[in-house]
């Protein structure tokens, strides 16, 4: 039946804000998406009616909080079609999920001379934790190159993954380029060599459905705040057998079974990896975000965002001297671009004056900027609440900025 954007926009109170005297055009969704009222109210109601610590208290409020918080774990399981609820580990976000893996895989799974494979389009959070692991173990970081359109070709990953590969860590969707990678094929190929696969899914679930069993990835990491949920909570999905093999990451309350000064035994999954009081309100907000996405249906989101992508590409192409950075055949509604002779920071500043929020800079992908030999880009990233009219506002805003900046 298609997406009713005007009604959806009413669910997001911030979209009716004005910025610098103009109606806000929010095109920085790849950084962080906005939150629907349902999420805001779920967090509010938790603090008003249920706030209490989880997993410990004997009192009713604590049990109510635990039930509400743990209900999200099941929602996440169903959302990404994981096999088991305890394969869902709550973290602070994608960054912490990847760091958890890099830290714990270093204790037994990775040794000197082993190879860890990433790609040229990775976010710093999917580069630096692996570099730390390499420094610690003597493993070697290998990088799959991308083509000029910003795609990983079959040939390129086949050239890099081999018998020495122990881990392949790749993004599902590139935050800078918008490229949707054929991760299923990469995962299958990595498994032929017995390598573990880690997917940085930060940019995916807001736009495309994720089925971890169909993908058969070993680990999948994502964040609530990029999929209409709150900041400070994210997910690490891992296959049960692998998570069981890994040592704990952080020590503290909740992650233990029994503590003595002589010997401590650890709690079962998922609690083994969840030391300390978790982000309870965040977990409840994440649950509400999943409910919200599921009330819309990915099919409609996909169709609508494809329309935005097609229109955005056409309209932006009409701007002279504009060059897209990343023009993959399969991409989400993210446009990174440069305009000859105009600094991205200047362009972003003048767009902001017009109420248009974009991101400028290297987007935490400096090696990618080096590949394209640019200092940074302007990035406009869309969500399903953006409109074709906002594409027009962006294009007009750019034209106005270019006229001012090339005086």
């Amino acid at each position, binding site marked *: 039946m298609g997406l009713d954007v005007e009604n959806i926009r009413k669910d997001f109170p911030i979209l009716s804000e004005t910025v610098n005297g103009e109606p806000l055009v929010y095109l920085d969704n790849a950084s962080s998406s906005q939150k629907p009222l349902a999420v805001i109210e779920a967090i509010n109601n938790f603090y008003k009616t249920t706030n209490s610590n989880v997993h410990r208290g004997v009192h009713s409020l604590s049990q109510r909080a635990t039930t509400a918080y743990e209900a999200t774990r099941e929602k996440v399981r169903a959302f990404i079609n994981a096999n088991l609820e305890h394969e869902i580990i709550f973290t602070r976000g994608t960054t912490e999920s990847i760091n958890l893996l890099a830290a714990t895989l270093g204790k037994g799974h990775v040794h000197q001379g082993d190879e860890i494979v990433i790609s040229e389009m990775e976010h710093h959070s999917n580069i630096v934790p692996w570099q730390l692991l390499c420094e610690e173990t003597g493993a070697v970081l290998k990088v799959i190159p991308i083509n000029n359109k910003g795609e990983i070709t079959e040939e390129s990953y086949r050239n890099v993954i081999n018998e020495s590969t122990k881990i392949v860590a790749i993004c599902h969707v590139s935050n800078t380029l918008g490229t949707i990678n054929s991760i299923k094929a990469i995962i299958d190929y990595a498994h032929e060599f017995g390598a573990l696969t880690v997917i940085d899914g930060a940019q995916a679930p807001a736009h495309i459905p994720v089925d971890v069993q169909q993908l058969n990835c070993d680990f999948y990491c994502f964040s609530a705040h990029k999929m209409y949920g709150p900041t400070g909570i994210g997910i690490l999905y891992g296959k049960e057998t692998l998570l069981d093999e890994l040592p704990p990451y952080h020590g503290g309350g909740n992650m233990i079974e029994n503590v003595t000064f002589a010997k401590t035994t650890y709690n079962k999954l998922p609690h083994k990896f969840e030391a300390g009081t978790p982000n309870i309100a965040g977990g409840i907000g994440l649950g509400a975000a999943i409910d919200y996405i599921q009330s819309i249906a990915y099919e409609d989101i996909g169709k609508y965002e494809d329309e935005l992508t097609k229109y955005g590409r056409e309209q932006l192409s009409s701007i002279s001297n504009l060059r897209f950075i990343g023009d993959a055949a399969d991409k989400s509604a993210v446009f990174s671009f440069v305009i000859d002779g105009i600094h*991205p920071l200047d362009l972003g500043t003048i767009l902001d004056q017009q109420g248009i929020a974009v991101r400028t800079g290297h987007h935490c992908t400096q090696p990618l900027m080096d590949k394209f030999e640019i200092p940074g880009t302007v990035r406009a990233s869309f969500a399903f609440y953006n409109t074709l009219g906002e594409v027009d506002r962006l294009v007009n805003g750019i034209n106005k900025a270019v006229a001012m*900046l090339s005086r």
Partner: protein
Amino acid sequence: MLSIDKIQDEIIADFGIFDDWMGKYEHLIDFGSSLPLIDDKYKLDENLIKGCQSKVWLNTEMKDDKVIFSADSDAVITKGLVGLMVHVLSNQTPEAIVNADLYFIDKIGLKDHLSPNRSNGLLSMIKQMKLFALGYTLKK
């Protein structure tokens, strides 16, 4: 040479004639482009202000007990802001620079650019300018 506050008051008056943001930014960009550039020999990595999206070079010299600043940027708005700072603080005594209260940025409505989140390097540049001046006062 005019005092730092006198120069700031002149800038405030100059910007006061624009009642919309476009005029103000165009004036800022024009101001930046009218500036004498930093000598290319000073466009060195060691003169780059770190931590900004735009490149900002700042060079400092001492001449007749006055601090001479020259600067440049690869972004035109940043260059305008940097130019204003140089215009206000250059050719002043180290003591005057250290003690300067840079109120003009707020008064001309560009205070947002001093936010650490802006990544234009302006805040770091002001710190750097004051640090140089402080260094000269200590040497005396």
